[in-house]
């Protein structure tokens, strides 16, 4: 295929990606070093109140936003260097916390709190998702044929459901004295409030995420099992391999590329954990990196969006995902190069 033909085919798609992905990235990078604020001026205002014989006049200095000729507030954009990054990372408070050796003090800073949660969340769910998905695929592969269709149907439900609503549906089981909280209280014989402290919410989020993503791993691994080479398995049986050895030395190596693929997708998706925070309304206890940017972008009480801080936190988030993905991307690259020739 000639370059011109390829350009016609991929042109629209590349154009969209450049306009709506690459250009905003550059924009965010620039914004993170800028600060746009209303311009303020200080004026002397004389206020007079009627008094006996003469007026009583007071002259005060007042700071007020400058209005342009069209009556709107004039804003100005200035370069502030790393200021927005400092506002997000808060190095002084980090130093103070480190000097005091206090982990809980460090965790009062939003960015570090979000980073801590996002990373632990990503790396705790990864093995769980792979494990549950593999176990399900092996189990369904052994069940009666006629049951497989319905099992796959039911398994797809948590995968396909709107993430916010999936999180909500689990929250509603536990909220207040919901049935599962009541059941837990009856079982453990103590008062339980699932949404009063961070770690219980995190447990529910972990459960939600595994519930939501395991079907994806399951379907892919199940399809992978169907293409397993039965000759190798049979010769392993003839050689006297136990069930565990067959799984360990025949099945898992066969599934390895799929496991890498699932890990890649899961890392990407889990690192941008966000819907859990909305669904469980957990922002008072637990926040994630993507939620932090979202929060900067939502108008605050006075209607302002802190765009520069959002940009700084977005750039930091992006650096994180690039670091996480480098090993996996390098592997995909090598595989791709290998198959292409």
């Amino acid at each position, binding site marked *: 295929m000639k370059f011109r033909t*390829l350009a016609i085919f991929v042109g629209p*798609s590349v154009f969209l990606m450049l306009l709506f992905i690459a*250009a905003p990235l550059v924009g965010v990078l620039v914004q993170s070093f800028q600060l746009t604020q209303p311009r303020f001026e200080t004026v002397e205002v004389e206020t007079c109140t009627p008094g006996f014989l003469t007026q009583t006049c007071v002259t005060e200095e007042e700071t007020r936003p400058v209005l342009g000729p069209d009556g709107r507030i004039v804003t100005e954009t200035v370069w502030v260097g790393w200021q927005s990054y400092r506002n997000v990372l808060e190095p002084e408070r980090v130093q103070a916390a480190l000097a005091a050796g206090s982990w809980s003090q460090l965790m009062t800073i939003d960015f570090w709190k979000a980073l801590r949660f996002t990373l632990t969340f990503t790396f705790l769910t990864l093995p769980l998702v792979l494990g549950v998905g593999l176990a399900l695929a092996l*189990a369904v592969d052994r069940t009666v044929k006629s049951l497989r269709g319905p099992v796959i149907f039911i398994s797809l439900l948590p995968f396909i459901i709107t993430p916010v609503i999936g999180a909500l549906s689990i929250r509603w*089981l536990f909220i207040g004295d919901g049935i599962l909280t009541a059941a837990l209280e009856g079982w453990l014989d103590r008062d339980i409030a699932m949404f009063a402290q961070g770690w219980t919410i995190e447990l529910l989020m972990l459960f939600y995420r595994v*519930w939501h993503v395991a079907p994806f791993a399951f379907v892919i691994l199940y399809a992978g099992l169907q293409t397993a080479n039965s000759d190798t398995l049979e010769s392993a049986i003839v050689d006297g391999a136990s069930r565990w050895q067959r799984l360990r030395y025949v099945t898992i190596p066969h599934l390895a590329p799929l496991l890498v693929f699932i890990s890649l997708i899961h890392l990407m998706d889990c690192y941008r954990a966000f819907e859990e925070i909305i669904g469980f309304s957990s922002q008072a206890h637990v926040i994630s990196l993507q939620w932090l*940017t979202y929060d900067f*972008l939502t108008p605050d009480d006075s209607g302002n969006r802190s765009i520069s801080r959002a940009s700084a936190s977005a750039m930091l988030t992006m650096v994180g995902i690039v670091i996480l993905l480098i090993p996996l*991307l390098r592997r995909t690259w090598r595989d791709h190069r290998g198959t*292409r020739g």
Partner: protein
Amino acid sequence: MSAPAALRPSFGLRALTAGGVALWCLLAAFPIFWIGIMSFKSPVDAFAADPLDVVLGPETRAGGAGLSAIDLLLGAATLYGLYRLAARGVPAAAARWSPPGRLWLGWILAGLGFALAALIALVALLPLAAGALNAVAGPLGAPILGATAEHYVSVWVDNQFWRNFANSLLVTAGVVTVSLTVGTLAGYGLARSGSALAFWILIIALIFRALPHSVLVAGYLPVFINSAELLSPILGDAAPTLYGQPWAVIAVLVSINQPFTIWMLRSFFQSIPAELDEAARVDGCTHLQAFRWVIMPVMWPGVITTGLFSFLLAYNDFLVTSLLLDAQNQTMVPAIAGYFNRETTTTDQVEAVAAAVSITAPLFLLVMIFQRQIVSGLTAGAVKG
């Protein structure tokens, strides 16, 4: 195939397997079905601590709303019939109704027909038939199960949830159409070109796939809000404010989805033998003609599957739509946040549950009809890509 007795799994292992699968099915389905049940109860029942109270709904029944044994039997029969129709009838109808080479048209027709049939059966026919039977059945017709549709009425009618529904429909339809049109061309080009440029586009797309959406939205927001000023030198007074425009959100969601779409469609096109379009080229077609007359007729299974995933992305999105659309033209998923943020009374909460179930129902139908396509889409991306 029967394995020798020595190799057959032991009883314990088989029991473990069956138990594990059963437990998973319970876990997977329970929260979704439970909110389905909750949405039909009065607030006291919906958030009762005793599960039996939630299912049977004594308070709701005392309030005068309930289902009799006859209602339940009829309802179960209707649902089973609909399931059979979705699993067997819809694919057959899609194949029959589609003009040759336009399988997608058949699928859309069949899907719409099924949705209409389901709606008529559940909302019009079922209550009529059940009402008539209840009147003559005596004790069998007395309500035994509390259930009320009042929350749905207040969500859809009083709170005008249908506006959000219409917005979701608009955004979703736009995203699916545009992203398939653009993505199919790109996917085909990338699948048939072995050049280094195609390889680099794919790698960069993979990196774009990993970007958190909030990073991109941080780039859009200032531009979108000020777009009227920024664009006025070029467009004059016609320059639009992009913030709050559904079509701007469509463009954004299409672009965010492009990396995934082109990877998936590329793997589908790679599974179509290249000899097919090479033969057309030998007969004198250009690449575009070969694509139009040889590839398009056989590409629909892949396109339908990719379309499903584009649909899911647009329909399920919270972050982009909540930040880029204003309250007037909000889609369904961000709109629901308004319900649980003002959860002052339990009635509000049950209304939130009803809204959540309303959002989930179309997805449920989607899995029913398109289960095979979804599974094939998931595996095609992984096994080949």
